[in-house]
């Protein structure tokens, strides 16, 4: 791996563009999570009874943070990165400067990570406004979002480095991201799934994120399955270097 502080330059470029276009990004930030909280939390939640008198909206709120941290990083490092790489030729112009391909890839991943953190912070504020944040432990959402962002950005950029065309991302979302959203501890506990799926869900990247987010937002970090951090770090350790390697193979002709 040959990335340096110069990857910050790519991060800065993406940050500048993001804050320039924030008007088109922000509605998505707020609208969807609020919609889900309303529909699932208040609507569906009326019919759901949980143990220990927990309200359903309290159960799903931290899961929504995890899921949208996942979406932010994933969109950024699939469609966003692919468009910059393939259509805008932004990478070509950057690697003619002192930056290496690894700097570009790492910068993209770090920016995807930042998007996750931003999203998590915004949703945290929203659910706090709904009165769903119970303790200062909830601030741990931010480092958790950073880890989740690093993981999902790395996996997404790896996929970007191998897809033949932009249409291929359909597979990524329908077969990987969406199943995790629905089955990965966001809307109901994993242990309600049939045993085979429990095992799959247990090692899916979103599950430990949702589980740990829930433990800190509800103010009971002791109930979190903290070994899940090992899963997250494991994914990062594999996919961060792998995405850099594959990106180099794709771009270095």
């Amino acid at each position, binding site marked *: 791996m040959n990335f340096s502080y110069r990857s910050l330059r790519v991060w800065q*470029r993406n940050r*500048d*563009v993001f804050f320039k276009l924030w008007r088109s990004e922000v509605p998505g930030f707020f609208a969807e999570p609020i919609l889900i909280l309303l529909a699932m939390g208040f609507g569906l939640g009326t019919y759901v009874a949980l143990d220990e008198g927990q309200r359903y909206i309290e159960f799903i709120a931290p899961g929504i943070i995890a899921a949208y941290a996942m979406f932010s990083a994933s969109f950024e490092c699939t469609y966003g990165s692919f468009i910059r790489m393939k259509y*805008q030729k932004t990478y070509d112009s950057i690697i*003619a400067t*002192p930056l*290496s391909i690894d700097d570009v890839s790492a910068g993209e991943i770090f920016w995807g990570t930042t998007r996750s953190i931003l999203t998590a912070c915004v949703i945290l504020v929203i659910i706090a406004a709904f009165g769903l944040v119970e303790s200062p432990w909830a601030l741990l959402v931010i480092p958790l979002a950073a880890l989740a962002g690093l993981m999902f950005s790395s996996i997404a950029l790896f996929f970007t480095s191998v897809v033949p065309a932009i249409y291929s991302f359909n597979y990524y979302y329908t077969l990987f991201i969406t199943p995790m959203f629905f089955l990965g501890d966001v809307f109901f506990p994993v242990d309600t799934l049939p045993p085979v799926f429990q095992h799959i869900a247990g090692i899916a990247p979103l599950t430990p994120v949702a589980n740990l987010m829930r433990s800190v937002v509800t103010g009971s970090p002791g109930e979190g399955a903290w070994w899940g951090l090992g899963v997250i770090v494991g994914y990062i350790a594999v996919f961060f270097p792998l995405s850099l390697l594959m990106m180099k193979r794709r771009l270095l002709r």
Partner: protein
Amino acid sequence: MFLIEIRGAVKRFGSIIAVAGVDLDVGHGECFGLLGPNGAGKTSLVRMITGVSPIGEGSIRVDGKDVTEEPRQIKANLGVVPQEDNLDPDLNVLENLVTFARYFDIPRAEAKRRAMANLQLFELQDRQRAKIEELSGGMKRRLLIARALTNQPKLLILDEPTVGLDPQTKHLVWRKLRSLKTQGATLLLCTQNMDEASFLCDRLAVMNEGRIIALDSPQELIKKYGGSQIMEVRLRSDERRDLVLSKLSEQSLQWQEMEDTLYIFQGDGQVLDQDLLGELVIMNQHVPTLEDVFLKLTGRSLKEQ
């Protein structure tokens, strides 16, 4: 010491050999032209020089540094004008230049100062807030060159810088490139525009099928390969083709055949005798240009099939 030193450079893509062993030295302050048909290996060679494409065999040194070992240091002193527009469409004109300067660690105030100066140089100062998509093709190309000057490069590499430009823009670009050269910059220019090559370049290398097949100043190339006059002729009768060709050989005239047209290269003092002239219909006679030399060296048939 030369600014660019290329020794035995080879580039393969699978079974295709794009660059088949090139040796080349380009001096400081020189404007050097790479001429060649599509697929001759110019772009592959340039990509190796700029450190964005691994060298298959051989070595390339720029300013004494090995391209493979010190790509960052080399790229810090390089300006690259690509053939394809890769301006950042998410940023406006000025932001493009300032953001590009940041890739070179140029502080923001200095970046802005240089950006304004370079915009002025290419007469784009009134467009600094414009979106990239609002620019014409000529403006984009001017901006690409302005951007390449951001790091005040020792070596400026341009890939077909005036392709598709109107004559006014073309001449503006040529004037600016000339003045950069007088200020001491070294220029490496890939082109298929013969006027451009003769106007700008001190020396030219003609590439074909991955090799350099001729290298000299434009004037010397014309003298050496073009002779003093070129005659474009057709045969009065196809049946006597062999006879005509053998007569041409007898008089040690060089020729090139393309479909039904013969191009006869006359050297100093060479004249066609009356017998021969009687067999020919003269379509055109002219003083040889670089284009004739190019076509003579690389052949008249289509190179890409």
